[in-house]
């Protein structure tokens, strides 16, 4: 009984994690299914169709490629713009700081349906043709804020002594940025880019409003949900999930090793200075 009381919170925590992964397990298991009817909702028969013939259903792979394209372009643009804003916010003094902060915060606090609708209202009034360009514009818009927040946190968490030390060693402003600041912020920027890509790749609501006849991967899934989602979609989603998880876990591992190495060298320095 005491054991249970002591470990209760751990048991609940693990249960919540398992709960988070139940739908993932369903998606993966059903990627090996051979649905009996048109809906892939319950287990029928083992089959590798979804995996051996990934592009076997028309539209699946082209929509997937469209989403990758939009994701890459909007992530690159938004990461550059957002990183610049983060540097300005942390390193520079300027007027209108609270308005700036508000304009960065609001996109994260606005329901997607409102952002999608208002952007569509703009494009309709300008008679701007809907398609890949409008979806990419929309994605850049909503990713910027997330990049700013991520990079800003990294910049603020940085030890100012490191840049100071570089200046003490006669590094010019450019050298300090190139050899000290940028390498230190880079993990934050890469993290922001990964977050941005996953937000773009998975976005449905804003894309749907501004897509016109363009079909992204989520829009394909939405349409397919009415007439039955092909197993290929489950297989592709499983691949995306595993690749993203592998990237994040590798980054964690590298970070962990780097920190260990740093701690070890710090200990060496300590013993050296004491002796």
């Amino acid at each position, binding site marked *: 009984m005491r054991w249970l009381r002591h470990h209760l919170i751990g048991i609940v925590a693990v249960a*919540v994690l398992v709960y*988070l992964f*139940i739908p993932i397990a369903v998606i993966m298991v059903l990627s090996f299914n051979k649905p009996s009817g048109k809906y892939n909702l319950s287990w029928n028969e083992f089959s590798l169709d979804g995996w051996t013939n990934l592009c076997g259903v028309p539209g699946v792979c082209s929509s997937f490629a469209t989403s990758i394209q939009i994701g890459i372009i909007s992530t690159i643009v938004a990461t550059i713009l957002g990183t610049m804003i983060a540097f300005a916010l942390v390193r*520079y003094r300027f007027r209108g700081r609270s308005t700036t902060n508000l304009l960065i*915060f609001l996109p994260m606090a606005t329901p997607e349906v409102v952002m999608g609708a208002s952007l569509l209202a703009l494009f309709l009034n300008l008679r701007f043709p809907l398609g890949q360009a409008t979806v990419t514009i*929309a994605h850049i818009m909503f990713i*910027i804020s997330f990049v700013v927040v991520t990079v800003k946190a990294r910049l603020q968490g940085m030890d100012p002594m490191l840049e100071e030390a570089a200046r003490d060693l006669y590094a010019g402003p450019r050298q300090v940025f190139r050899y000290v600041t940028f390498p230190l912020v880079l993990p934050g920027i890469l993290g922001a880019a990964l977050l941005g890509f996953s937000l773009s790749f998975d976005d449905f*609501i804003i894309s749907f409003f501004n897509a016109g006849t363009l079909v992204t991967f989520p829009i394909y899934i939405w349409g397919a949900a009415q007439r039955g989602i092909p197993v290929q979609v489950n297989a592709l989603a499983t691949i995306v*999930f595993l690749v993203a998880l592998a990237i994040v876990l590798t980054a964690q591992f590298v970070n962990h090793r780097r920190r260990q190495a740093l701690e070890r060298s710090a200990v060496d320095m300590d013993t050296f200075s004491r002796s």
Partner: protein
Amino acid sequence: MVAVVPTAARSGASAPVAQRSSKTGYLLLFPGMAWLGVFFAIPFVTLFMTSLQAPVAGSPGKYQFGLEFGNYASAMAEYWPLFLRSFLYAGIATLLALAIAYPLAYFIAFRAGQWRSLMLVLVIAPSFASFLLRTYAWKTILADEGIITSTLNSLHLLPEGRILNTGIAVVAGLTYNFLPFMILPLYAALEKIDPRLMEAAGDLYASPQTAFRKVTWPLSMPGIVAGTLLTFIPASGDYINAALLGSTGNRMIGNAIQINFIQFRDYPTASALSFVLMAAILVLVFTYIRRAGTEDLV
């Protein structure tokens, strides 16, 4: 005094780094802020103007500039129950998410030790699989002949005899989908708490329950406020869960906005509904900003 001067001089030398005031700052800000201005702020103006447009006489589906404030009255008269339902579903889902997220965030912050960063990765990992597919997967999990529904049915706990295509399924989907938005801010707030404060409460003969109620819970309040907002806002505007897991009787305001905009092409009504939703949510956000300040959130 002698010891103080060099320190002051040094901090004086590093201060310009944090507060350089030059054109560079504005140049760095401009492109990104211009993008947000043109594609986020201005669209609200066009949305508002669209919400006041008047139909063109004789050509249905065409609208022109107008000041038809009556659009709001007719949109609200038709759709107010969907607003209520959206805020009700989102509110229940937010409370459920808080109850589910708190133990996990607490465990990661105080008990996970070396597993902390791995557990945080596991919290965000499900988001790497498509939002739509994860929601669709709940159709399988909550199916009428599934384990959950039949178990609850044998206990006579389901008023409608099923979960799928009822409000329960929509709330369950919302709770699941926005859970990470609750866990992460809660964790961030809990992680900042000095565990010695809880120990001190114990040393002063507070029972674990009292220590939690008087120390941990109040100190985690910033995380609770941020988490509830980050869950409630997207949940109240969501229409994917209602469309995939609910029936026509469970439609939320997002469904109405989407259908009016894209299917019916009734732009004024759809815009008026979006504007009211945004206004209702802004009231919530500004209350929060006044409590915590934007700097903490951004």
